[in-house]
């Protein structure tokens, strides 16, 4: 709180005081009182006035300064009312009351939305489980009736459904994953098996190196992540996919590399952004810009680092790093 701004704000009050003082002087002279009386009255009034202004300024400065600094430091500014001490002057108390009301209503609003969000998430999870029944039925029917042409379309439907599930999972604060030692070899083999028909239809070769190790992660989530990367490689013209694990002193890095069309340098920093489709997406018109965004969010939730390197027309390589610190120590024998 600045003194100059405070004084400027009180300008009207000062003008009224000055006017009153002029009136008093006029009365004093009208009643022919001696000049000394005018000096004494003026001095007393001036002293009184200055003291009042100083006192008012200081107590308000105390309150508002602490309010401002509190607001500055707070991460969630809507908690301001809770953090402010009630002042001893009327306006301040009014302000505090209003702030508290506003904060309370804000919290209620948030709670409503949180509940709605949670209910929506639960509904989506349930819906995904339900919709998998007819999809499974279709897949079995096609197999039993020997209808080979339909399988890939059914798989696409299933893949899209999975994306919805993981989008919802990636967005909520809830911890619905389990970190435990997982064999990279096993997870990748499950992913490969799931995509086998599509990979072979495109004549894409798979190579693996050094996957015989365990990392701390959620197997299901990692399977989804690898599935998304595989889908992308298939979409963008890969002829070969190489998946390898590299052991560094403090972490294991999984390299997922393909020799597809690559990503233009301008687009590279943005590939993990929501709804970003980039030049490749426009040219191929199959991109929603959600896949890699979800992948990034899942990695963040699991505490894995993810980065991408690419050269247009040559390769694209995703690196996922798994921590190996005390907390993430791998127990031998567990899968």
């Amino acid at each position, binding site marked *: 709180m600045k003194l100059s701004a405070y004084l400027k704000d009180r300008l009207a009050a000062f003008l009224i005081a000055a006017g009153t003082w002029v009136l008093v002087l006029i009365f004093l002279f009208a009643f022919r009182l001696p000049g000394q009386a005018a000096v004494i009255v003026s001095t007393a009034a001036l002293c009184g006035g200055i003291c009042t202004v100083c006192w008012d300024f200081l107590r308000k400065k105390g309150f508002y300064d602490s309010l401002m600094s509190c607001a500055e430091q707070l991460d969630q500014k809507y908690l301001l009312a809770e953090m402010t001490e009630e002042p001893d002057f009327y306006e301040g108390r009014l302000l505090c009351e209003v702030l508290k009301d506003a904060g309370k209503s804000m919290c209620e609003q948030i709670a409503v939305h949180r509940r709605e969000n949670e209910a929506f998430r639960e509904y989506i999870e349930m819906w995904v489980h339900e919709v998998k029944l007819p999809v499974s039925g279709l897949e079995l029917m096609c197999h*039993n009736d020997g209808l080979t042409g339909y399988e890939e379309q059914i798989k696409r439907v299933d893949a899209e459904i999975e994306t919805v599930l993981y989008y919802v999972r990636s967005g909520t604060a809830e911890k619905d994953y389990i970190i435990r030692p997982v064999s990279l070899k096993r997870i990748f083999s499950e992913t490969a098996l799931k995509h086998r028909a599509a990979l072979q239809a495109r004549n894409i070769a798979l190579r*693996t190196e050094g996957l015989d190790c365990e990392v701390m992660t959620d197997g299901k989530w990692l399977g989804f992540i690898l599935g998304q990367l595989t889908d992308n490689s298939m979409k963008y013209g890969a002829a070969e996919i190489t998946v390898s694990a590299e052991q560094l002193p403090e972490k294991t890095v999984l390299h997922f590399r393909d020799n597809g069309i690559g990503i233009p340098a301008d687009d590279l920093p943005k590939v993990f952004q929501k709804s970003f489709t980039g030049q490749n997406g426009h040219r191929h018109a199959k991109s929603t810009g959600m896949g890699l965004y979800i992948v990034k969010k899942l990695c963040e939730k699991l505490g894995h680092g993810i980065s991408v390197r690419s050269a247009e027309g040559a390769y694209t390589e995703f690196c996922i790093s798994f921590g190996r610190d005390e907390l993430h120590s791998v127990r031998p024998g567990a899968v």
Partner: protein
Amino acid sequence: MKRILIIEDDEILRGELARLLQNAGYDAVQMKDFQDAAAQMTAARADLILLDITLPGLNGETLLQEFRRSSDTPVIMLTSRTGELDEMLSMSYGADDYITKPYHPTILLLRISAVLKRAAKAVSAVQMYHDAEVSTVRGSVTRGQQEQILTKNEMIIFQQLLERRGEIVTRDDLMTALWDNEEYVNDNALSVNISRLRSKLAELGLPDAIETRKKQGYVLK
């Protein structure tokens, strides 16, 4: 014939599962009424049980726990729940495998045969084909004094054919088995592996052991 009990409340899915299993040479039994499910499970005298996690009025996991107290018949959980926690719970309650919907039919059949084999402890190192010994440990086929070493891929293919001897095994089935063993071979490589396997068998005096059925697959005679 191995008997498999299907516990699944979705009628269509149950019917299709039964058809899939029957086509694959199993005796498929369906549970249609889930009253007293645990007793029915025991009474069915199945070699393997496919159990859905979400059943009307009861929970597959609890059912499994109850069943496990009296029986060690292999159980494969079929579920649309795709959480690591669900899988961990099921396995800790004594499930032998956990497969999420929608399962690829050939993968499902592969898992079923793997679990049955494990349960029968039939992973005996030596199997017989005519008068030849097939040893998975040595990775070879021996007939009389002659021994032919098979590569890992050839052995996987031969095992698949041997397990379903006399039946048609599709290229899709063989591919699934190979990929399940982290052998990511392509179409050409499969053909090459089969022709190598053929010539190795021919050298042992077993020519024409593998018959090609056009557009269907292979039959081991």
